[in-house]
C-alpha cells in the first residue's frame, strides 16, 4: 500500500469551493481533516468559529464540536431508521420541532424523496440513499444550533446519480445553500458539476494544491480537452 503525502495550504474565500483532482490525490483526506476524522501530522485548521486543529499549540477539536456538517461518499443512512427519521436526525436541538418539520419537508420535496419518507434504507436504490444522505446533512446545516451557519462538506455524494437527477439535485443544493448562506466545500470528478456550480475550484494533484480560482480559468484546459473529445466523437471517421 502506498503512503500518500499530502501538503495543502488554502483559504476558502467563496461560498462554494470545489476540490477537483484525480482519484487518490487526497481530496477526501482534506475533507476528513476539516471534519476532524483525520489527524494531520502537522499544520493548522481554522474556521470563523475558532481553531479546530493546531499541531504546535496541540489543539484538536472533536468532530461533533466543529461547525461542520458532512455527507460522505457512502450514504451511511442509519439502517434502523426510516428515511424521514434519518433526515431529521441531525437537526439542531434548539430548533423548534415545527420548524425542523417544515424545513425537512421542503428539503425532502425538493430532492424528490417525498414518496420514500417512510422507507427503510435497505429498500432504497443507491442514488436514493445518496440523495437522502445529502438531505440529512443539509437539514442539519440549516437548523444548526450555533452562531452563523456551519461549513457543509460534500464528498462526491451524488456520484451514483444519473445525469438528469444530478443536475436537479445540484441546482436544488445550490439554491438551498445560497438561501441559508451555508458555505460548501465539495469534492467532484464531474467537470459539468463544477461548471454548473460556478464555484471556486481548488485543483489538487500530487498531494498539493496546484491552482485555486474561478472554475472558468482553473478548469479551462480540462474543458477544452472534453470539448475536443466530444467533437472527435461527433465527426465522421
Amino acid at each position, binding site marked *: 500500500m502506498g503512503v500518500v503525502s499530502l501538503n495543502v495550504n488554502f483559504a476558502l474565500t467563496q461560498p462554494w469551493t470545489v476540490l477537483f483532482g484525480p482519484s487518490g490525490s487526497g481530496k477526501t483526506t482534506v475533507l476528513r481533516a476539516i*471534519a*476532524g476524522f483525520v489527524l494531520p501530522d502537522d499544520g493548522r485548521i481554522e474556521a470563523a468559529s475558532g481553531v479546530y486543529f493546531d499541531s504546535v499549540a496541540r489543539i484538536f477539536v472533536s468532530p*461533533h464540536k466543529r461547525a461542520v456538517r458532512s455527507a*460522505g461518499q457512502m450514504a451511511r443512512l442509519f439502517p*434502523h431508521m426510516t428515511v424521514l427519521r434519518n433526515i431529521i*436526525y441531525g437537526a439542531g436541538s434548539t430548533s423548534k420541532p415545527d420548524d425542523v418539520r417544515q424545513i425537512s419537508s421542503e428539503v425532502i420535496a425538493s430532492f424528490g424523496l417525498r414518496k420514500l419518507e417512510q422507507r427503510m434504507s435497505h429498500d432504497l436504490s443507491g442514488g436514493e440513499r445518496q440523495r437522502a444522505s445529502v438531505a440529512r446533512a443539509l437539514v442539519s446545516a440549516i437548523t*444548526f444550533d450555533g452562531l452563523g451557519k*456551519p461549513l457543509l462538506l460534500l464528498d462526491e455524494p451524488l456520484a451514483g446519480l444519473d445525469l438528469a437527477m444530478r443536475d436537479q439535485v445540484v441546482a436544488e443544493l445550490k439554491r438551498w445553500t445560497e438561501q441559508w448562506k451555508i458555505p460548501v466545500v465539495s469534492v467532484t470528478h464531474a467537470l459539468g458539476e463544477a461548471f454548473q456550480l460556478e464555484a471556486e475550484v481548488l485543483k489538487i494533484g500530487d498531494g498539493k494544491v496546484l491552482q485555486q480560482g474561478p472554475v472558468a480559468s482553473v478548469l479551462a484546459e480540462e474543458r477544452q480537452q472534453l470539448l475536443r473529445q466530444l467533437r472527435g466523437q461527433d465527426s465522421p471517421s
Partner: protein
Amino acid sequence: MDIQALWLTLKLAASTTAILLVIALPLAWWIASGRSVARALVQAFVALPLVLPPTVLGFYLLILLGPLTLPGRMLIRMFGHPLAFSFGGLLVGSLLYSLPFAVQPLVAGFKAVDTGYVEAAEGLGVRPLRVFLSVVLPLARASLLTSAVLAFTHTVGEFGVVLMLGGNIPGATRTLSISLYDQVQEFNYGAANRTALLLLSISLAALLAIYLVPALRKAEGRQADVAG
C-alpha cells in the same frame, strides 16, 4: 422443590444482570472504541474469571470482604456486618464472576458496528453519548440480548464462588446449584432430579432466546418484504 433457593437464585441473577449491564455497556464501548495498552490490560482483567477456578476468586473475595483487610473493615462499618456469608457478598462475587459474560458479547457487538455510521452521526454534530444510544446500541442490540442472557444464566449456574463466599445459609446464600449439591449429598435423588431439571430448563430457555429471537425476527422481515 426448594422454593426459597429458587427465589434467591432468580433474585441474585436478576440483580447481577441489571447491575452488570450498567457497568458493561460503557466499559465494553470504551474497550471497543480504540486500541491501547490500558484497554488490553482491562480486557485481560475482565476475562480473568473465564480461566480462574471459581474457588480461587471466592477465596480472595472472602479475604478481601472480611475483617482482615482495610476495604473489608470499611464495608463492615458501612453495612454493620461482614459482606461474606450474606446476599450482598454473593452479589459482589457474581458481578465479578459473570463480568466477562456480560462484557465480551458487547465488545464483539460494538466492534461489528460499521464506524462509518458513527462518523456519519458525528458529522451531523451529534454528541457521542447520543450517537452511542441512538445509533451504536440499536445496531448492536443482538449482542445486548446475548450479554444479558449469558450474565443471567451464568449467575444461575455458579457454584464455586457461592460456596466459598456465601456458605450454605437457607434463604440467604443457598442457591439452586448449592441446593442440588445438598440433595445429592443426602441421597435425595428425586428432589435432586427436580432441581437439576429446573436448572436445565432455565439454561435451555436462555439459549433458545439467544438463537431463536434473531432467527424469528429475520423470518418476520422476509415475510414483510414479501407482503410489501
